[in-house]
């Protein structure tokens, strides 16, 4: 059912196609947005909780980049009339799904990696010059958070791919609604519903791995731990490992069985 060379060739082809001015501009803006904001903030404020800002902004660009690259997985092929050419190949539909998922994940990972690295670098060069403790913090925060960001990219790429397969024509807006409602709103509700969001488990993983990094604000720490560290760390890791598998399995099932009808077909 799955052919690795086929998936890789779809992924490679996607990267070749993405070498256009528009797409490169999108890469550029998304990767440089967090460092630009960190630079601005570092110059207007001696803010200590820079990690939160970097995390928040990286999360925003991760979501946005995957809205662009993961959600139109089926629609872009239908819109560019490339669908029939690829889906009439053996295992073409699943290869298309997984190849595009891989390309979207790698693109988002690249964006997040650049964003986190440059943001940390800017913090080190600005605040770090007169505060050695910041340099110390960055050396542990940077690598660990990069890994968490990459995990986020893979998870959201899989979830958004599922939206793309289910609602090919309105996938981007529906995925945006999903992000707003489930990942921003529901994830912040201290109830069972929050555990059904990717963000809940990402925050749990961050708390478990990086630790809480604003120790001065005790109520915040307590609240965050109460809400997001409610589950053992291994459960968070397990859920984050299962989400892509589950989302992609459902997507593969749907894409293989669904009739995608273009206007040219009647």
């Amino acid at each position, binding site marked *: 059912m799955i052919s690795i060379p086929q998936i890789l060739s779809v992924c490679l082809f996607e990267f070749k196609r993405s070498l256009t001015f*528009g797409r490169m501009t*999108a890469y550029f*803006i*998304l990767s440089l*947005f967090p460092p630009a*904001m960190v630079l*601005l*903030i570092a110059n*207007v*404020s*001696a*803010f*200590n*909780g820079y990690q*939160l*800002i970097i995390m*928040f*902004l990286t999360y*925003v*660009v991760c*979501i*946005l980049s995957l*809205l*662009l690259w993961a959600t*139109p997985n089926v*629609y*872009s092929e239908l*819109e*560019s009339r490339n669908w029939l050419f690829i889906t009439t190949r053996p295992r073409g539909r699943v290869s298309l799904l997984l190849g595009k998922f891989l390309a979207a994940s790698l693109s988002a990972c690249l964006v997040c990696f650049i964003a986190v690295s440059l943001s940390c670098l800017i913090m080190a060069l600005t605040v770090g010059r007169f505060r050695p403790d910041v340099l110390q913090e960055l050396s542990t925060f940077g690598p660990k958070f990069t890994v968490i960001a990459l995990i986020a990219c893979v998870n959201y790429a899989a979830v958004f791919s599922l939206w793309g397969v289910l609602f090919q024509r*309105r996938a*981007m*807006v529906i995925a*945006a*609604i999903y992000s*707003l409602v489930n990942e921003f709103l529901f994830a*912040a*509700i*201290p109830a069972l519903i929050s555990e059904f969001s990717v963000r809940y488990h990402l925050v749990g993983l961050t708390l478990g791995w990086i630790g809480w990094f604003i120790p*001065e*604000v005790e*109520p*915040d720490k307590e*609240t965050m731990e109460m809400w997001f560290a409610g589950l053992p760390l291994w459960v968070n890791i397990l859920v984050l490992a299962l989400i892509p598998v589950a989302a992609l399995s459902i997507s593969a099932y749907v894409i293989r069985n669904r009739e995608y009808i273009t206007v040219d077909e009647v």
Partner: protein
Amino acid sequence: MPINNVGYRAWDGITRGALSRCLAIASTGIGITFKSQWIRRMLFVSWLPVAYVGIGFFFFEKYMDEQIRQTIQGLDTENKIDFERLRREAQQNIRPHEANQRIPPGDLRGALSLFPKSDVVIRSIMNDSPSVARHTTWCWMLMFFFQYPQGIMMIMMIGLIVPPLISRDLRSRAYLMYFSRPIGRLEYLLGKLAIPATFLAMITLIPAMTIYVFGVMLSPGFSVVLDTWDIPFRIVIASAVLIIPTSLLALMFSALTHESRFAAFAWLAVWGLGEGAYRAISAAQFDPRTLPSGEPVAQRITDWSFVSLFGTVGKAQTWVFGLESDPRAVIPFIIVLLSISVVAAFVLYRRVTAPINA
């Protein structure tokens, strides 16, 4: 052999003017858009907030009953309200749900303090005459209605409707069909602009007017209309503030690409990145550790809402509904919105001309 003239023949009858051409483009677009089930669903969902704002109006009118008013005032044991403290509490909390936990149960003022400009409303209810308090409270509820549920609905609605409007014409070369007829570029653009404007009016202007009528119906008598006669005008202006810049911006994105998904992405990115930037800067400013000891938070706060389109539109609407005490503070936001509208209109006009000039 007879040679027949099969070329262009001028129309001898009477044409109905430029407006009819705009209407033809708009009505066709609206008809096609309305066929989408998703749009119809979203329209339905967009009207749900009318219910809870309506309930707000209902309870407010009940509150205006003197006896109930006194009862609620009686809950305030100290008989004075520290608005600054309430505002500081709200601002220090980046995450509203956390602040929620700190509010003692049943404290109406504390709950209201989470919402922008609530201090104006509370002060008015407590100190002003019922007619002034009514005007302020209605305006505040309508502003809240425009800014939050309908503001977010507007982003999604435009995200669904506008991206293909011009990009599809560019892709399929349909502009050749348009411009081979006596349709000017301005007529084309106005026709296209009317499509999102109509749908946005359906989720802002019309429900807000419905709420207003509902409020009047729940009030003690028709004299209320004299107190609130300006609110319908404010609703119209607030709708225009929401509809015109946003529709023009989305149409501009649509005109800049042949692939509608890039237009949709650009639209979502503008809101996402803007709001992200605003929240990041606000969080940095509001963090207590950024302040030298003893310095009040309020003095350090600079309003960075203009980096977010959401915040900019919201600020302008606050002013439209008369809830901004210092109108000069709104000028930068108005300039931002005007600039967006002018630049978007200019780019649109240029882009629509581009295929003809090519």
